[in-house]
């Protein structure tokens, strides 16, 4: 009976003293400082646990605890813990992203053949100044700025922090600039539009000193763009001496090679999976 009474008295004292409690705001915008009201009295230890933080400091229970804005930059769920002599109390609060002001802008590919429908993709991840994804829908303005043409733009609303568009490449080679804009963020990426596969690949042959000089006409794609220098053109010659092949890179728009010809020879040309015309020539023995 005596022990029951003792326990009851202890409980009453504890209630009267008031165990430490925390009252953080339910929701905070990233990058803002807050104060957390506490109850209780005496020395206590305050802990703040978040995505990128795990801090500990001594405080007085019953006072307001200030939390710096630097500690609350990353969005997510934070746990505030206050431990006093009578135990620990905790409270969770959410840090939400600030206003959108930053974009991670992914544009692919960085090189694209001309006249390729829906080949370019532009994806923008909407973020605040602290790299937090802004998940609520926001309008992102995408624009295409051709080298010598008028700007074309379209707006897309983000979903789950992402907005994206698909674009087709132009018929003319050259760089084009793609932009994405939100808040103060204006990101620009450059896509290089390059000639597509060679079209109407043709070769001609003329006599050099002792060999035949075989060269292509200027190598162009079907839209009339010059196939870039360095692109490999394969020449194949079959004559009495056997077969000969040479992989020659295009230089100044054409590919050329000197081939010795023994008797009658057939010369063919190809670039990648595209084949060109065939020549028949007759050389000296």
């Amino acid at each position: 009976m005596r022990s029951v009474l003792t326990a009851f008295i202890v409980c009453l004292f504890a209630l009267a003293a008031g165990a430490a409690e925390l009252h953080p705001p339910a929701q905070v915008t990233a990058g803002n400082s807050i104060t957390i009201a506490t109850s209780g009295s005496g020395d206590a230890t305050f802990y703040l646990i978040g995505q990128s933080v795990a801090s500990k400091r001594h405080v007085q229970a019953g006072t307001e605890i200030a939390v710096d804005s630097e500690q609350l930059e990353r969005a997510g769920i934070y746990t505030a813990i206050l431990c006093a002599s009578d135990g620990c109390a905790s409270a969770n609060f959410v840090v939400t992203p600030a206003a959108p002001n930053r974009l991670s802008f992914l544009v692919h590919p960085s090189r694209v053949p001309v006249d390729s429908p829906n080949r370019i993709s532009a994806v923008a991840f909407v973020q605040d100044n602290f790299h937090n994804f802004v998940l609520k829908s926001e309008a992102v303005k995408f624009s295409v700025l051709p080298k010598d043409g008028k700007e074309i733009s379209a707006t897309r609303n983000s979903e789950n922090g992402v907005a994206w568009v698909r674009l087709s490449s132009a018929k003319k080679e050259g760089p084009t600039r793609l932009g994405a804009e939100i808040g103060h963020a204006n990101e620009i990426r450059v896509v290089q539009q390059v000639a597509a596969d060679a079209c109407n690949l043709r070769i001609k042959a003329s006599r050099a000193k002792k060999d035949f000089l075989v060269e292509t006409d200027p190598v162009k794609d079907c839209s009339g763009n010059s196939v870039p220098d360095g692109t490999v053109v394969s020449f194949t010659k079959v004559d009495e001496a056997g077969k000969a092949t040479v992989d020659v890179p295009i230089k100044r728009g054409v590919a050329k090679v000197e081939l010795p010809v023994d008797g009658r020879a057939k010369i063919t040309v190809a670039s990648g999976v595209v084949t060109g015309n065939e020549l028949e020539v007759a050389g000296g023995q």
Partner: protein
Amino acid sequence: MMRKILTAEFAEKTRRPRRMGLRYSSILALLAALACVVLVRELRVLAKENAPRVQLHADNLGPRSIEDLTSKSIPRDYALAWQTMEQALEENRPGLLDGYFTGIAKQDLTQRVHSQIKSGLHTRYQDGGHKLEAIFYSPAGDVMELRDRAKLDIEIMDGGKVIYQEPVSIEYTVTMTPGADRWLVRELQASGGVKP
């Protein structure tokens, strides 16, 4: 009850055969308790060695559809990311984060481990599994956004003292990007839900 059996006062009152029986049963109880401790410890080690359970749903994924290989790699690599993260936060080893994290997620978690070391804290997770829903896969296949509903039992310790313990159900927004031979977690942002 057990505590009373071991008191001298009670032992004096018992008869000898009964006292012998009690002695043996107390030894057996001690052995059983020891076995339990060892077993629990082993199970915990085993749990840490096994990656958490991750279920991937990619039914509403777009604009790119998920490849067979990617649909296997994403849950595997995400599970391994959580396993290494939990280990890094429990043992305060930031190096463990190098394997499956990159970008801002790695930066955040590394900072968290360093501040845990500075404050003498560590965090222990009991992972109840993850329901992972793929919500965006970029047309070029270079980034995937996912939503994870995770069930966790979080225990925060200051030295050897537990200062916080709570079962929680948290929703994360995750972005993963392909690395050389695996998918890496680039962003892990808790976006809602705390109580189970």
